[in-house]
C-alpha cells in the first residue's frame, strides 16, 4: 500500500515537474499585465472540473498578483444567474463559463465580447487550431470566435469490463447490438442486481438533449440546413422531429426502458451516473467529465472495472460523437476586462490547459488529448481523441431559444418513453410545437 502511494506521489511530482517545464516555455511575465490588488470573479457550473480550475488558479496570481474567486452553481441556476446578470448590464462577474448551447442566447442578450482581436494579437499563444474542431465550433457564433473552449465534453459509452469479459460478449457498436447486450444483462441470474442500460429519460432538458445527442448517429438531423459541416446550419430551421429516423430513434428509447432499473423513466444525468457508479448498470452513455466519478474508488464501486467506447449508431451508419461542455467568456459589462482577458489567455493556453486536465479537467485541446501522461492517467482520453474526429458542434441547437427548444422536444420524447403517446404521435406533436416556437420567435 505504502509502495503504491510512493509510486503515485512520484508520478504526480514527475507530471507536475514536466508541466512546469512546459509552462516555462511561455514568459508569462511579459505576456500578462500586473493586476495586483484585483480580484477576478469567475462563475461556472459545479461540475467536477471546478476543483481543477481551483487547483491551477494560483499560477495566475503568482504572475499577475490578481486573485481568482470561483463561484459554482447548478445548471439551471447558472443559466438563470449568468443570463439575467449580464442582460441587466451587471459586471460583478468578470469571466463566465457558459454551456456552448447557450451562446446564441448570450450573444442576443449582448453579454459577450468577441475574442477575435485578442487571438489576432497573439495567435501562437491562443493556438486556436489546437482546440478540437467541435470545441472551437462550440465557442464560435455566427462566424466569430466569441469565447474560449476550455471545458469541452464528449459523450461516450462506458461499459463494465468485468461483466463483458465474464459474459464473453463484444462491446455493442450498433443500436441492435446495444439492445441485445442490454437485454442480456437485465434480470440475468448470473449478474444479480445488474440492469443493462439507463438512458436520460426525464422530462424536459434530459430527454431533449438525449434526442439531439443521438439523432445524427441514428441517421437523422434536427432541422433542414443542419448538415454536418454546413457553413450556415441555421439558414433553414424547418424542424424534422417527425422524420422516420427520429421516430425510430424514439422507439429505441422506449424499448430501452425495459432494460433499465425501475423508475428509469425519471432518470437524468445524476441518477444514471450514480447507478453506474454503484455497479447497477452494465452500460451507460455519459459526458466524458463524469468518467472520473466512476473511476474514483471513494465514490464508485466500479473503479478500474470499466472502459469507454464510441456511442452506438444505427446499423449501416456511423457514430457522430456528441459534443458539449463549457466555454469561457469575458463579461462585456465587467469592470476588469483587461485582467479577465489576461486570465483567459493564461488559462486557455496549452501549458496551463495541460495542468488543468491533469488535475481532472476535461481535455479540450488536441495536444492534451494526445498527451501520454494524460492518456495514462485518464484511459478514456484516447477514445475521446478518436470520437472528436467525427463530431459536430451544432449537434444540439445553439440559437437564442435553445433552452426552450430542447425542453419542448424533451417533454414530447418523455411522453413516448413512458408510453403516454406513440413515438410517431409524440414526435408529430414535437414538430408542431417547435415550429410554433420558432415562428413566434421569428426564426422560421
Amino acid at each position, binding site marked *: 500500500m505504502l509502495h503504491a502511494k510512493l509510486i503515485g506521489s512520484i508520478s504526480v511530482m514527475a507530471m507536475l515537474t514536466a508541466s512546469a517545464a512546459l509552462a516555462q516555455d511561455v514568459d508569462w511575465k511579459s505576456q500578462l499585465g500586473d493586476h495586483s490588488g484585483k480580484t477576478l470573479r469567475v462563475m461556472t457550473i459545479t461540475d467536477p472540473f471546478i476543483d481543477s480550475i481551483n487547483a491551477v488558479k494560483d499560477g495566475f496570481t503568482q504572475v499577475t498578483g490578481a486573485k481568482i474567486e470561483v463561484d459554482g452553481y447548478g445548471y*439551471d441556476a447558472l*443559466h*438563470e444567474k449568468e*443570463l*439575467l446578470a449580464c*442582460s441587466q448590464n451587471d459586471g460583478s462577474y468578470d469571466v463566465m463559463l457558459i454551456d456552448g448551447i447557450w451562446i446564441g*442566447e448570450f450573444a*442576443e*442578450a449582448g453579454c459577450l465580447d468577441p475574442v477575435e482581436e485578442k487571438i489576432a494579437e497573439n495567435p501562437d499563444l491562443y493556438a486556436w487550431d489546437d482546440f478540437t474542431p467541435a470545441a472551437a465550433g462550440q465557442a464560435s457564433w455566427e462566424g466569430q470566435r466569441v469565447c474560449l473552449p476550455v471545458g469541452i465534453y464528449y459523450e461516450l459509452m462506458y461499459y463494465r469490463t468485468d461483466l463483458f469479459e465474464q459474459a464473453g460478449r463484444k462491446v455493442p457498436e450498433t443500436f441492435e447490438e446495444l439492445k441485445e447486450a442490454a437485454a442480456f444483462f437485465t434480470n440475468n441470474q448470473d449478474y444479480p442486481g445488474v440492469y443493462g442500460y439507463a438512458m436520460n429519460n*426525464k*422530462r*424536459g432538458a434530459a430527454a431533449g438533449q438525449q434526442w439531439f445527442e443521438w439523432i445524427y448517429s441514428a441517421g437523422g438531423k434536427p432541422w433542414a440546413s443542419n448538415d454536418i459541416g454546413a457553413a450556415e446550419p441555421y439558414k433553414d430551421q424547418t424542424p424534422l422531429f417527425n422524420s422516420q429516423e427520429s421516430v425510430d430513434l424514439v422507439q429505441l428509447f422506449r424499448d430501452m426502458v425495459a432494460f433499465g*432499473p*425501475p*423508475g*428509469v*423513466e*425519471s432518470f437524468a444525468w445524476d*441518477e444514471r451516473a*450514480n*447507478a453506474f457508479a*454503484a455497479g*447497477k448498470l452494465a452500460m451507460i452513455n455519459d459526458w466524458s467529465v463524469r468518467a472520473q466519478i466512476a473511476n474514483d474508488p471513494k465514490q464508485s464501486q466500479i473503479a478500474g472495472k470499466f472502459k469507454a467506447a464510441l456511442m452506438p449508431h444505427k446499423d449501416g451508419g456511423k457514430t457522430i460523437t456528441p459534443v458539449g461542455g463549457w466555454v469561457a467568456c469575458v463579461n462585456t459589462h465587467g469592470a476588469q476586462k483587461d485582467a479577465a482577458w489576461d486570465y483567459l489567455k493564461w488559462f486557455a493556453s496549452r501549458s496551463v490547459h495541460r495542468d488543468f486536465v491533469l488535475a481532472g479537467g476535461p481535455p479540450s485541446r488536441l495536444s492534451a488529448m494526445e498527451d501520454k501522461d494524460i492518456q495514462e492517467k485518464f484511459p478514456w482520453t484516447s477514445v475521446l481523441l478518436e470520437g472528436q474526429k467525427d463530431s459536430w458542434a451544432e449537434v444540439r441547437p445553439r440559437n437564442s*431559444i435553445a*433552452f*426552450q427548444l430542447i*425542453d419542448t422536444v424533451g*417533454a414530447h420524447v*418523455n*411522453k413516448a*418513453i*413512458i408510453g*403516454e403517446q406513440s413515438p410517431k404521435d409524440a414526435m408529430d406533436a414535437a414538430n408542431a410545437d417547435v415550429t410554433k416556437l420558432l415562428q*413566434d420567435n421569428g426564426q422560421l
Partner: protein
Amino acid sequence: MTKAAMRAGRPRQAPRRAFIHNDRFQMTAFIVPTCIFLALLTIWPFVYSVYLSLHAVKLTAMKRAVFVGAGNYVNLLGDPLFLRAMLNTGLLAVTSITCEIVIAFVIAKAFVSLSHLKWVNGLRSLFMLPMMVTPLVVGMIFSYVFNPILGIANYLLGGVGLGPVPWFGGTTAAMISILLINVWQWTPFMMLLIMAGLLSIRSDLYEAARVDGAKWHHVLTMLEIPSIKGIVLLGIILRIIDTLRFFDVVYVTTRGGPGDSTMVLTLYAYQQNFQFFQAGVGSAAAVMILVISIVITTFAVRLLRRIENE
C-alpha cells in the same frame, strides 16, 4: 436663542403641537410608511407584472417589448400544458388537503386522548418537524428516499418481499409520490389546528354526550366536527394558498414529469420566466395564479364568516 425669543416662539408652536396630537395625523403617520412599503414591494411589482403580461417580451431583451394586449392570456388558456398544470394543481390541492385533514384528525384525537401522559408533549413537538424543513430540502431528501435503486423506500419494501416501486417513474406513481411528500410535510400543520379546536371543546359537553348515551360517531358528527369546522376551514384556506404556491418539491424531483403528470402552475410560470425568459407569458401565468388565489380565498373567507355566524 434668548429666553425672550423662546417665549416669543411658544404661541406659534401651540397649533403645531395640536396638529401632532391630532388623531387623524397620528393614524396617517403610522400608516404611510406601511403604505409606501406595500406600494414599493407589492403593488408596484404586481402592476409591472400586469404590464409585462400584456407584452411579448423576453427578460433578456426588455427594450424589444411588443404590446400584444390579452394575447398572452389567450395563448395560456389555449396551451394544453397550462391547462394540465391547473388541473394538476387543483387535484393536488383537493387530494392532499383531504388526506391531511383525515390523518391530522386521527393523530390530533390520539394526542388529545393521551395528553395526560408526559412523553406525549415531546412526541407532539417531534411531529412538528416536517413542516419546519425548507420545502426544497424536503424535495432533495425524498429524491434520495424514493430513488428506485439506491433509496431507502425500495430497500425497506424489498425487506418485506415487495417489489421495487418506480416512485417518480410512472405518471400515477409520480403524482402519488408528490402527494405523499406534501401530506407528510403539511399534516402536522393541520393537526396543530385541529388539536387546538378539539382542546377548546369543554369537557362537560363530552360528559353530557356520554350521559345521553352518544356513540363515538355521534360525538364526532354532532360535537367535534361542528366545533372544529371553523378552524379547519381556516386551515383549508391557508393550505389552498400554499398548494397554489407549491413548487420546490416538484422542481427537485420530477420537473413536471413523467409526461405532464406533475406539472403545476408555479413550475409552469417559473419555466416561462426564468428558464425560457419569456417574461410576457410568465407574467401572464403569474397573474392568473394570483387571480385564482384571490377568487378561491374570497369564496372561502365568505364561507368561513357564514360558519362563524351560525
